[in-house]
């Protein structure tokens, strides 16, 4: 009742600036782009022009009988076309998202589309994947939905598609994936075993090499001793034989 009175009060208000607000007062909703149905519903509540509509906030629209979500969205889009936003519309969009989620609909924001893009689409009545795909060719018509947002949507759709394809391949061939992984695992194990065997063999050979080097050193030392003794004896032999016999006796 209070809301009804408020709307009536608004209808009785006089615009302040007659010159600049003229078209907002004089032009009908249908002339400005609203559908006849929504235009009639608003008029029944005394909202006969844009000027009066701009005095409402989103909450007031729930009192307009016969005006559902589609109609409300139409009004929001209509206002956006003229560069206006209705106070309280953000919370309304969130509420609508909540309602749709409760009804089991999978929303675009739940599928990962960035919030800013989702909100712009929500204002156009696009909440779900189905509605997005239906309206893909009309994205140009959405106000404040520029090239950047369109690029984001396209990239997001491509990404979703590639993820879906990967999931399908995995789902179709789970057993093949597992068996191929197992086979690869066995291959890798065999490769690693072969490498380990080579490493072990190298270690054994290195030890053997070291032992042979030590043996060589000992043999060379022994040979040097023998050479020294022989040289000593040869030196003594070169001296007189008598001297030698004397020493030996």
């Amino acid at each position: 009742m209070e809301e009804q009175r408020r709307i009536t009060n608004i209808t009785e208000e006089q615009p302040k600036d007659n010159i600049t607000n003229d078209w907002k007062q004089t032009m009908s909703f249908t002339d400005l782009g609203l559908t006849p149905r929504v235009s009639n519903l608003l008029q029944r509540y005394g909202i006969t022009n844009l000027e009066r509509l701009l005095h409402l906030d989103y909450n007031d629209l729930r009192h307009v009988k016969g005006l559902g979500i589609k109609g409300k969205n139409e009004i929001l889009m209509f206002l956006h076309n003229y560069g206006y936003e209705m106070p309280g519309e953000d919370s309304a969009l969130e509420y609508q998202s909540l309602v749709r989620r409760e009804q089991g609909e999978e929303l675009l924001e739940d599928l990962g589309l960035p919030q800013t893009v989702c909100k712009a689409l929500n204002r156009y009545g696009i909440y779900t994947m189905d509605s997005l795909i239906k309206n893909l060719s009309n994205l140009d018509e959405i106000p404040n939905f520029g090239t950047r947002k369109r690029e984001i949507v396209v990239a997001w759709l491509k990404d979703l598609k590639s993820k879906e394809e990967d999931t399908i391949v995995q789902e179709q061939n789970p057993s093949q994936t597992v068996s191929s992984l197992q086979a690869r695992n066995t291959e890798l194990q065999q490769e690693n075993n072969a490498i380990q065997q080579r490493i072990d063999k190298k270690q054994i050979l290195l030890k053997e090499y070291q032992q042979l080097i030590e043996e060589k050193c000992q043999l060379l030392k022994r040979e040097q001793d023998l050479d020294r003794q022989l040289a000593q004896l040869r030196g003594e032999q070169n001296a007189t034989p008598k001297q030698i016999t004397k020493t030996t006796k």
Partner: protein
Amino acid sequence: MQHQSKLQKQQNKASDLEKLEQEIFYLEEEIKKLKQANKVTQIRIERKSLELQKYWLKVLGF
């Protein structure tokens, strides 16, 4: 990037195996040579020991 590093790893593994095979081959060759050289040295040592023994026998009058 992941795919490339996997490929690189496989290639590195293959080259590691090759390197190991080469090192093993080299070691085996060197071991053969050393064994041969030690044999020759051993023969020389035996010859020189014999020479020394002959000398001492001569000196002692045998």
